[in-house]
């Protein structure tokens, strides 16, 4: 599997970190590595942009595969103990952001928009938690994606049917995604996000950009050629 993502526009990156003073940057060296978002150059650029906003960067950590919960847990144990930051900026696909959000007590923000899932398959198992919509809204939803966590994919809050935190459509098997989001935002002191302006998706962003697709194809083909 190879999730492709691109860095969020700078104004979105800056906007989501408003109100936070110290940021831990956590970068994925998995699929992302090939596409440069977690390259040393790119991470230096991100660090500089965050610092330009008058925020400190407590650390920049690269982890192989942020979709691996155990690895993330290990890294976060150390970082969370130090506690020298109040927000985590994650450079990865939407899955990595959500794994970090699950494992950390701090608010977690995506540095990227995930645009496509495709490429190499058959190596990893993962619950579907990213729909590669190209317009990552995890900053507004407590690091939990409502497109996959809510059975209707609602963007602006729960439907009227959730009961005791369970989904009205699949109460036996699913938690209400918006209940999880609510709990997470409450725990991280960001409840104001639940009464914000309506979120509307821009579906024109869900089409993967041609340059990323051709780059991926090229890398995969070269890989096969060397075997």
């Amino acid at each position, binding site marked *: 599997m190879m999730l492709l993502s691109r860095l969020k526009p700078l104004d979105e990156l800056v906007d989501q970190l408003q109100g936070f003073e110290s940021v831990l940057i956590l970068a994925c060296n998995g699929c992302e590595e090939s596409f440069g978002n977690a390259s040393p150059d790119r991470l230096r650029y991100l660090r500089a942009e965050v610092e330009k906003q008058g925020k400190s960067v407590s650390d920049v950590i690269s982890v192989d595969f942020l979709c691996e919960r155990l690895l993330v847990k290990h890294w976060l144990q150390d970082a969370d103990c130090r506690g020298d930051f109040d927000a985590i900026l994650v450079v990865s696909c939407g899955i990595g952001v959500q794994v970090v959000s699950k494992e950390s007590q701090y608010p977690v923000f995506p540095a990227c928009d995930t645009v496509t899932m495709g490429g190499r398959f058959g190596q990893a198992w993962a619950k579907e938690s990213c729909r590669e919509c190209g317009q990552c809204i995890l900053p507004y939803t407590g690091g939990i994606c409502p497109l996959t966590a809510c059975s209707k994919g609602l963007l602006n809050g729960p439907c009227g049917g959730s*009961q005791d935190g369970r989904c*009205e459509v699949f109460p036996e098997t699913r938690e209400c995604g918006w209940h999880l989001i609510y709990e997470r935002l409450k725990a991280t002191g960001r409840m104001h996000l639940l*009464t914000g302006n309506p979120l509307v998706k821009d579906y024109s962003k869900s089409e993967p950009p041609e340059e990323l697709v051709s780059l991926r194809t090229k890398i995969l083909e070269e890989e096969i050629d060397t075997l």
Partner: protein
Amino acid sequence: MTIPEIVKKKGFAVTSELSPPKGVDCQKVLKLAEDMSCSVDAINVTDGQSAVMRLGSLPLCHLLMDHGVEPVLQLTCRDRNRIALQAELLNAYTLGIRNVLCLTGDHIALGDHPDAKQVYDLDSVSLLWAAQKLNQGHDMHENSLDGATDLCVGAVVNPSSTDIEPQMLKMKRKIKAGARFFQTQAVFDMSNIEPFVAAAREAKLPFLIGILLLKSAKMAQFVNKNVSGITVPDSLVTELEESKDPVQTGIEIAARTIREARSICEGVHIMTVGREDLVVEIARQAGLPA
């Protein structure tokens, strides 16, 4: 007349609802509407309720107007993208409809076409916001309209949910997005209603409490088991179980709940699910003016 205008004029608004037929024969449903029109100020027309394919809400609303009945068009986001939703709002206004209730819509899995693709391009909040834009003379993309709408858009809230705070926050979001009245999911127990009524009052919006006719103990148990977000208290289930005439008891319960609601809010929305012929009797027993 819009729901807020009705409340302003009469002090208390009474609405009920009808489902369009599964087919095109509207005679029966129009007769029901005519019969209940003496007891209600407006009638909601559902939009693919329970994700069951039926005649659309719009044509029936239009026919109701021809019969002198004020309709409330229900519009859900399940079956249409933002282009179709905005167009339907323009359609409604062009045909003289003024009240629109904006809903997300029941999940496809609950209906008679579980293999259909569900849309949810917008949801109830963003649909309210889109309608507000049309009222301001432009569409969601700020393109100017040749003639703006003046729709009165309402929203739903479920005060009976066990997850009260998320519901409350969503209500606030709906107010912010332009809701001008609220109709609630069925309420049997008024103990949690206060913060919702207060939020509506603070925004100066009419709040109509949902009243569901319980026709039998079996129905009450069915609701508790299968309708997520609605809870019929045990005391009412027992009352129905012990009754010799459960339908009559159900009417009494509904009338009692309406009387209770009259001292709390600006109106009620009566849902009788297939027994629309009983709406007049419920209103009579509740002491609502005919």
